[in-house]
């Protein structure tokens, strides 16, 4: 998933984004099977799928609200709740799992004091699990937005979080 263009934690002007969304939806009007690409664009625009976006999609694509809601809840990449600035995804693919991804996840939950799927009160971090990012040679890995952290040990988790929290850098070196 790409990094949200706008993060949902601040006071972004969602009404302005709705206008942009309208243009996007209209450009898909003639595309067969447009609903999913439109929802992907919405997710990327807002960082989640707000109710007013669903209403707009329903109106322009002439799709019943119920079927849009059905599609959103089916796919794990669509979120009805705003997410934190940093989406931390712990790979729980087989290679990562047998190399200790579970311990990394436990450490993250303790560090952030949230469970999987939740967002920290400061709206900085959302914790989620991923199903294999296809970088199994580097297991275990976690992804923070689009940054890959490889060979992560549970003892290194605190440092990774701290780096994002304090400096919010683009990449953090992780010792292998």
């Amino acid at each position: 998933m790409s990094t949200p263009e706008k993060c949902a934690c601040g006071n972004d002007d969602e009404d302005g984004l709705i206008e942009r969304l309208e243009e996007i939806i209209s450009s898909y009007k003639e595309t067969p099977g447009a609903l999913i690409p439109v929802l992907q664009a919405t997710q990327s625009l807002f960082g989640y799928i707000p109710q007013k976006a669903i209403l707009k999609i329903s109106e322009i694509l002439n799709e019943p609200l119920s079927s849009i809601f059905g599609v959103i809840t089916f796919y794990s990449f669509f979120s009805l709740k705003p997410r934190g600035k940093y989406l931390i995804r712990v790979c729980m693919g087989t290679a990562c799992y047998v190399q200790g991804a579970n311990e990394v996840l436990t450490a993250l939950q303790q560090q952030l004091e949230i469970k999987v799927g939740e967002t920290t009160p400061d709206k900085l971090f959302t914790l989620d699990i991923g199903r294999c990012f296809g970088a199994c040679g580097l297991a275990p890995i976690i992804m923070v937005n689009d940054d890959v952290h490889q060979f992560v040990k549970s003892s290194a988790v605190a440092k990774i979080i701290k780096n994002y929290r304090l400096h919010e850098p683009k990449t953090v070196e992780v010792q292998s």
Partner: protein
Amino acid sequence: MMDLNKLMCPIKSSSELLALHQTIIDSKEFKSDKIYICAGGGCIASGSMKVKDAIAAQLEQAQLNDKISIVETGCLGPCALGPVMIIGKDETFYQNVKPKDAHEIVEQHIKGDTIVERLIHPVGEKKVAKRSDIPFFKNQKKDVLRNCGKINPTKIADYISFGGYQALSKVLTEMTSEKVVSEVTISGLRGRGGAGFPTGVKWGYASKSKDPIKYILCNADEGDPGAFMDRSILEGDPHSVLEGMIIGAYAIGSSQGYIYVRAEYPLAVERFQIAIDQAREFGLLGENILGSGFNFDLEIRKGSGAFVCGEETALMVSIEGKRGEPRPRPPFPAEKGLWNKPTVLNNVETFSNIPQLILEGGEHYAKTGTDKSKGTKIFALAGTVKVSGLVEVAVGTPLRELVFDIGGGISTGKKYKAAQIGGPSGGCIPEQHLDVPLDYESLNSLGAIMGSGGLIVMDESSCMVDVARFFMEFVQEESCGKCTPCREGTARMLDLLNKICDGNGEMSDLDELEKLSGTVKNASLCGLGQTAPNPFQSTFRYFKEEYIEHIRDKKCRTAVCKSLIKFEILDACNGCQSCKKVCPVEAILGDKKQQHIINTDLCIRCGLCLSTCKFDAIIKY
């Protein structure tokens, strides 16, 4: 790279394509010395782009930048050793290269012909410099990955220079669609997505349909955890997949295709889109391809994080913009697929096989492999092997060769326990079957499947009950819920496996699990449910004693199952208090410089103390 747009664009005929090929291979740049730097997803994550910049800067400083060109290639294979690179002139393979090594590489090796010893690959006691002498590479047969590591995947000229689009040209000028289908049938190529259905037969069904609208789809929804072959092909040689799809479209008479790529693979999407745009610009995609009158176009559709969409009918429903729930077959997609039109769906690797197959002929292709399974297969080798990464071998190569010769054996110094092959639909191969040839039939007879090619090696520290539980949790979560056997059956099986891992299992649970396995397998609607019991069944078949230990003795011999393990602090503890500080539940007691103890009643077995202790004073058992 030279400005190809000025050469000839779009290409209007086969002879123009040949002329372009000649122009490229005659160019100064094509003949120049090269440095190949891996720009596969793994190496980029390890920092290969910074290494590339550093090398480029050094070359410029040494005024060699017009004599030596850097090629950013697709995955070279050994991902865990990244960033990796190859010096073209003598094929030296460097691993774990850092930007600060660039100066030495250019000064010492490029200018002075002396290899930088500390960056070359160790094999046992020795260090081996040349790529073709390294066991990881030497024991592979790179047919499908022939360009991966040689070309820049974002440059169509690189692909054309190695014979790219010649197969398409041959098909459009010399072959009827029937001839293409028969050539693929003769080759014996079977679908690389997992099930192994003969590709030629599938194409044959669809080509016979009289419907004027047909679709060709490429399944790049590589959802099996532990599999990254398709990702690497799309990132490393996207044009080969594209060419395969155009040839497939010609064979069945389709003018519109879709490739469905996982959303987790942004780089693959980006590179494939570049390939599509270039192919269009060069007249290799779109209307009147190579002046033949044949029209075909292609669109990327991104997945949205649903494993079940890797199932062919679910994938089609998802492209239609709906919940990705499978539908019953028949009718089969060759008759009624996407938007109820005849549809052929093949996997990325399958399409990538096609161009070479067409150029060399089906009979030649069939010379590699076994009686019933032809060609090569790419595996994503991961887990506890010394050299993990992407490998391609002839179908039928023994598993032992893959793990011990190519992978270099077990990385942890422990013993081999099992290889999990085929992901959540597959099974485990124990030590006594290490010599099994990797082909569809042999693997099936052991309760595993070829699958898409994910191969995870596990050493003695993996608990096989936990592995079964892991996969059951995966399929249970990913079950779409449409049919009851899969929705309820996998949930019930997961309950039972959790119960056993938590130390509450009873012997009767095993009978229940076996019974449920049969039901889920036989009654589920699609492949996800039909194969969901495989990980349990195969671990139960080969590691029954571990299940019994968990139930009867309340013991997990590998100390993986949390409820069954204990932590203990040994005499080696010097009272540094590190563990006491990290313990989230204050279960560790003891004063500074005094040996600490763990209150097992409070301990939640998170293992933080163990990973924090620098004195090896904490054990778990």
